[in-house]
C-alpha cells in the first residue's frame, strides 16, 4: 500500500451511483498484508504500556472514542469539562440524529413514508432516544417547520444518491467496533454508520461510510482514519475504502485506505490514549488555550481559556 490521497470532493452523480465509487472492482482491491493488523496492535500496546502501568486498579477501562481523541488532543481540560457535562439538546443535534435514522431506514428498507414521523419513531424506540423525542416535542411550530424542511432537503440528497443496496453488499448500519488493548485496560471503540462488503478473504473488501448532516470539518478525515484503524485491528484486514457522505450537499469524499492513513490514526490514538490514561490516573488536566475556548463548557473555571477569549475579542 502506498501513499494515498483523498479524492476531490464531488457531488455523487446519481446515475453513476455512490456504490460503484465505494466498491470499485475486485481488481482494485489490494491484497492484505497478513502481519499488518498484528503489527499495529503491538505498536499500540507498546506505546501505551508505560501509561497503562500507571493506571489505578479500579476495574474501569480507559475509553478511547473519536470524540475523546478529538477533545483531549485539543485541550485536556476541555475533554474533562465535556466529559462531566450532559450533551445539550440542540437543533443541530436533533437534525444529526434524525438524518442518521433516516439514512439507516433508507439503506435498510429503501422506503421512507414521512421523514419527520419516521425519524421520531426511530428515536422513540432507541434506548437513548427519550430525551431527544422530548426535546422535539417541545419545539415551537416555527422551529419544527424549519427542521422539517431541513430534513426533507437532506433526505432528498440521500435518496437521490444511494440506491437500495444489493444483498451481496451485506450492508450493516450502526455497526459497533471495540478493540480492547492492554488486557482490556484501554478500550478503543466506535460506531460505523454504514459498512459494505463481506469480510476479507485475503483482499481488502469492506467500505466504511460516515454520514454527516453538518458542514465539512477538519476532524472528519481523522475520524474516518480512526475507524479504518479499528476495523483493521478488529477484522485483521484494512477496509478497502472509507468515505464521508455529506447529506446537506450530497458530496461524497472517498479515500482508499493506505498505510499512511492507518499510521496517522495510530499516532493520534497513541497520543490521545497516553493523555487519557494520565487523566484516568488522576493527573491534573493540562490547559491548552485555543480558538474553541469560547465554546468550552469549562470556560468559567479556566483562567487560561478566559484570557484566550478576551485576547481574541480584543484582537
Amino acid at each position, binding site marked *: 500500500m502506498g501513499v494515498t490521497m483523498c479524492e476531490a470532493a464531488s457531488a455523487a452523480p446519481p446515475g453513476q451511483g455512490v456504490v460503484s465509487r465505494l466498491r470499485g472492482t475486485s481488481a482494485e482491491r489490494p491484497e*492484505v498484508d*497478513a502481519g499488518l493488523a498484528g503489527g499495529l496492535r503491538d505498536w499500540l500496546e507498546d506505546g501505551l504500556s508505560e501509561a497503562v502501568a500507571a493506571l489505578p486498579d479500579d476495574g474501569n477501562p480507559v475509553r478511547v472514542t473519536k470524540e475523546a481523541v478529538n477533545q483531549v488532543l485539543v485541550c485536556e481540560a476541555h475533554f474533562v469539562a465535556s466529559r462531566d457535562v450532559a450533551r445539550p439538546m440542540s437543533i443541530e443535534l436533533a437534525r444529526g440524529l434524525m438524518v442518521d*435514522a433516516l439514512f*439507516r*431506514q433508507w*439503506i*435498510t*428498507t429503501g*422506503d*421512507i*413514508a*414521512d421523514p419527520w*414521523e*419516521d*425519524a*421520531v*419513531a*426511530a428515536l*422513540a*424506540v*432507541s*434506548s437513548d432516544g427519550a430525551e431527544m423525542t422530548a426535546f422535539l416535542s417541545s419545539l415551537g411550530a416555527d422551529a419544527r417547520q424549519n427542521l422539517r424542511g431541513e430534513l426533507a432537503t437532506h433526505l432528498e440528497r440521500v435518496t437521490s444518491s444511494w440506491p437500495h*443496496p444489493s*444483498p*451481496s453488499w*451485506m*450492508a*450493516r*448500519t*450502526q*455497526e*459497533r*467496533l*471495540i*478493540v*480492547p488493548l492492554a488486557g*482490556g485496560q484501554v*478500550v478503543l471503540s466506535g460506531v460505523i454508520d454504514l459498512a459494505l462488503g*463481506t*469480510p*476479507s*478473504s*485475503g483482499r481488502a473488501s469492506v467500505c466504511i461510510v460516515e454520514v454527516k448532516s453538518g458542514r465539512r470539518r477538519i476532524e472528519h478525515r481523522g475520524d474516518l482514519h480512526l475507524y479504518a484503524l479499528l476495523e483493521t*485491528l*478488529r*477484522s*485483521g*484486514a484494512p477496509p478497502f475504502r472509507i468515505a464521508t457522505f455529506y447529506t446537506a450537499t450530497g458530496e461524497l469524499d472517498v479515500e482508499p485506505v493506505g498505510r499512511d492513513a492507518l499510521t496517522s490514526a495510530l499516532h493520534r490514538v497513541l497520543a490521545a490514549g497516553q493523555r487519557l490514561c494520565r487523566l484516568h490516573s488522576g493527573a491534573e488536566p493540562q490547559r491548552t488555550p485555543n480558538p474553541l475556548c469560547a465554546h468550552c463548557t469549562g470556560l468559567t473555571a479556566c483562567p487560561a481559556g478566559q484570557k484566550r477569549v478576551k485576547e481574541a475579542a480584543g484582537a
Partner: protein
Amino acid sequence: MALTLSLPRASTVTDEMVASVPDLEPDELQRLRERVVSELTPLAAELPEGVRLVLDGYRYRVAVRAPEHCAERAGPFIPSPAACRRAVGVVAVDRCLRRRAAGPADAVARVLAAGVEDAQRTEDGDGVRAPWWARWYAELGPGGRAAVAAEATTWATQLWTALAWERIPPPVVVGGRDDWWDLPGQRLTLRSRAEVRAQVDRRAVLVVVVSGAPDATSRSELSFVALVSALAGGARSAPGRVLGLWPAAGQVRVVPVGARALEVAADELVAATATWVDALIEQRGRGT
C-alpha cells in the same frame, strides 16, 4: 482459549468448530450431575418462600461480574430494537442457511413480515403462537419498524459472515430451543442458550454470540452454557466445545468441554447460585 485468526476468518473459526472432539465418559457426566444436585439442593432450599430462581446467562453474568447488583430489583422489560435483534436475527440466519432468502437483509424483512402476520393471527385466535416481539413490532410505525430491521440485519449479517456454513456437518440448528434444567424438587431452574448448534463426533458444538469484547470472565460464562447444556441433555452427551464470538471485537474464544472443565464450571455455578440466593434473601428482608 483465544483463537489466533488468519484470513478468511470464517474459515479459521469453522476449522476450530468442526475439529475432532474427544469422548466424555457417561459415568463422568453422571458423577457431575450428582455433584451439582447435591451442592445446589441445600442452597435452593434457602430461597425465600414463593421465589423461583431462574439462573440464566444474564443472571449468571451479573453474579460473576457485578454481584452487588443482584440484590437490586430488576426494572420492567422494555422491548427495543437492540432487545429483539437476536430473536429476529437467528431466525433470519436460519432462513439464509436454508436458502430461503437472498441474504440477511432480505431474511430479516421476511421474518419481520411473518411476525406481523403471526401477531394478527394470534389476535384473531387462530391458535398461532407469535414470537414475543411480534405484537410490539406490529404496533410500530414505519420508522420504528425500520430501526428494528436495521438492528437485526446488522446482527444477522455478523453471524452469517462469521462462519463457513457449507463446511459445518448437518444438521445445523440456528437458534433452536434454550437449554432448561430444573433442580429436582426445588425452585431453581438453569437456563442457557446458544445461537448455533452442530454435531461433531457425536457431541454437540455450540456457538454463542456475545456483545462487547471478551474479558476475564468470558471463559466462565461460556462454561456455564456448556454445563447447563450438559445437565439439560439427559442421556445425551455433553457438548464437546463452546465457541464464543464477539463480532464487535472480532474475537473468538474456544472452551473445550472435558470432565475437568465441567467440574470447574460446577464450582462457579454453585458460587453464582449462592450469590443469587443471598441477594434474594436480602431483597425479601428489605421487603422489596
